[in-house]
């Protein structure tokens, strides 16, 4: 068991390190000229050389990536026109266009993305499990057919199209904007409600199908028959006994989904104008802001890898059969 976890942790770290080196090579060592982009149109050779050296672009590639890694682990110093600026660990450099540390930009954007994704998750888990259970109870009936039929169609409509239409036409929902949770919880919730409902209700379609399948299986088990034969009310059989067993596979899918959504909330963020990681990546793309782009990609990889690791380990603890594999 311990060996299994250790093996998974080592492989997770190797993935993150390779991502770091590969994306560094891609972004910083490709024949691009960020210094020229920053320098702009009124540029002369002296100014260009100064920008190059302040960005460390005049050093050999190995030293550049060494410096970047050192920055992440212990922090590093930047010298701009004789002024030394210290960047604390984990240091991912400075944004070319905003002049702020990348870590600070990421720290501002992350809560927005997490708020959207977690709020949406509450909505789709609630409705998905509810509809799935109702559907499984009335298997083959009108309600079941209606729920499953509409969930199949909703699931195949492109998500960004739904989000665009909701943002344009559903005007009853409060205006979308981000307020930090701690400063005003009410404003925080009302600014995010449109995004939560859109993300939640479209994803609920998929979760309705997962929970229905899982519920049908668990209602066919012996312990449910035993519970029924003891004369426990049908509602209690379904919601206490059946649902509890049916939830494990749903929670596993949820764990894997959550990681994907944290790095894929970009459409929700962009369409509802919420300044999360996705919007930060897009802005960095449009302004050719390599350190920010690199920071977003790295953060995304770490989130994905860590989430997958957690799901795997939790699953091994919950289900002893997996351990053999």
């Amino acid at each position: 068991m311990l060996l299994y976890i250790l093996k998974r942790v080592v492989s997770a770290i190797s993935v993150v390190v390779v991502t770091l080196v590969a994306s560094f090579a891609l972004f910083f060592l490709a024949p691009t000229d960020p210094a020229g982009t920053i320098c702009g149109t009124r540029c002369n050779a002296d100014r260009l050389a100064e920008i190059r050296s302040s960005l460390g672009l005049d050093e050999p590639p190995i030293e550049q990536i060494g410096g970047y890694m050192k920055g992440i682990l212990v922090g590093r110093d930047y010298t701009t026109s004789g002024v030394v600026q210290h960047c604390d660990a984990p240091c991912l450099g400075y944004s070319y266009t905003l002049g702020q540390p990348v870590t600070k930009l990421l720290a501002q954007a992350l809560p927005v993305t997490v708020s959207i994704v977690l709020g949406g998750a509450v909505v789709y888990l609630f409705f998905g499990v509810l509809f799935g259970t109702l559907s499984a109870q009335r298997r083959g009936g009108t309600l079941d057919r209606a729920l499953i039929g509409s969930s199949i169609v909703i699931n195949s409509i492109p998500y960004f199209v739904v989000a665009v239409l909701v943002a344009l036409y559903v005007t009853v929902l409060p205006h979308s904007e981000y307020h930090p949770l701690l400063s005003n919880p009410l404003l925080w919730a009302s600014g995010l409600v449109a995004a939560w409902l859109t993300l939640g209700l479209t994803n609920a379609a998929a979760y309705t199908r997962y929970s229905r399948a899982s519920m049908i299986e668990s209602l066919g088990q012996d312990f449910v028959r035993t519970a029924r034969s003891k004369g426990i009310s049908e509602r209690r059989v379904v919601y206490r006994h059946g649902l509890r067993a049916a939830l494990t596979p749903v929670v596993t899918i949820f764990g894997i989904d959550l990681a994907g959504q944290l790095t894929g909330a970009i459409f929700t963020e962009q369409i509802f104008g919420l300044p999360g990681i996705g919007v930060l990546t897009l802005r960095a793309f449009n302004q050719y802001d390599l350190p920010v782009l690199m920071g977003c990609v790295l953060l995304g990889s770490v989130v994905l890898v860590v989430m997958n690791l957690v799901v795997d380990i939790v699953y091994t603890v919950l289900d002893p059969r997996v351990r053999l594999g």
Partner: protein
Amino acid sequence: MACPTEVIHRVERLSTRGKSPTAIAFARLRTDRVAVICGSIFLFFVLIAIFAPLLAKLEGQSPTAYHQELVDDYGFPTIGPTSGHWFGVEPRLGRDLFARWVYGSRPSLIVATSVTVITSLLGVVVGLVAGFAGGWTDRILSWVIDFVLSLPYLLFAIAVPAVLLSIFVGPADGASVDQVSRVRFISLILVLSLFGWAGLARLIRGEVLSLREREFIAAARVLGVPTSKVLFKELLPNLVAPIVVSTSMALPSYIVVEAGLTYLGVGLTEPTPSWGVTISAAQSFYRADPLYLWLPVLGITVLVVALSLLGDSVRDAFDPRTRR
């Protein structure tokens, strides 16, 4: 849901003659009403894409010609759908909406089809090799598969074109619009292919691991059949079902990804007529010119829903256990 006796009769009818599993699956697919309707819708869009120039000529318009005379001083079109412009014209530039719509179906289908073909080929080859070779080859390839699957691919899909663009066309401001749109087209296909093959490779590897222990493979090896022939003549025919199923599921998802990235401004760019570009431009005119927004929205929604339902039917046809 079909009634049980009907299913049994159908299965009996199908299994009396010696048919290959693929032939049986296609026979099942032909009797599936949803599959036939969705397949026809898909075919309809393919025909539109192929005959886009002809359709535009029939209307007498081109997707790139400006009609400033049909747009008022505020950029709003002065005409609705007419005999000259079947769906009216675009706000601001006054380009013909029908011509742009029929041409707009092309990039979606071209990008999605090429990516599906490339990822399927790559996934099958890597999966076959990893599963069949075993040992260190398998260990390395499996690590690469896991690695690719654990990358945040949307973020990469945004970041990589930025780098490719600067490699192929140099500084951003020096490139012509046509050059940029061509590089964007190729880099979109490249990036999606780079991240798309791993899922299928993992699936195929698993199948091969169990198939290679079967008698017919052992027999072929004892007879001295060369490895490449064992791979492609013995193993591959047994992998048709997972390959066809995953391909039919992949196609609609790549159409969505193409349109989505294009909508975000990181996929295809003007002047390529594309539904994603149009949706993003039409958002600000949704009240004044609803047709401008709804044409591409309906186009992409109908195409993707039809393809997804077709994909579900294909899966059911190849694997009756998943029948709803």
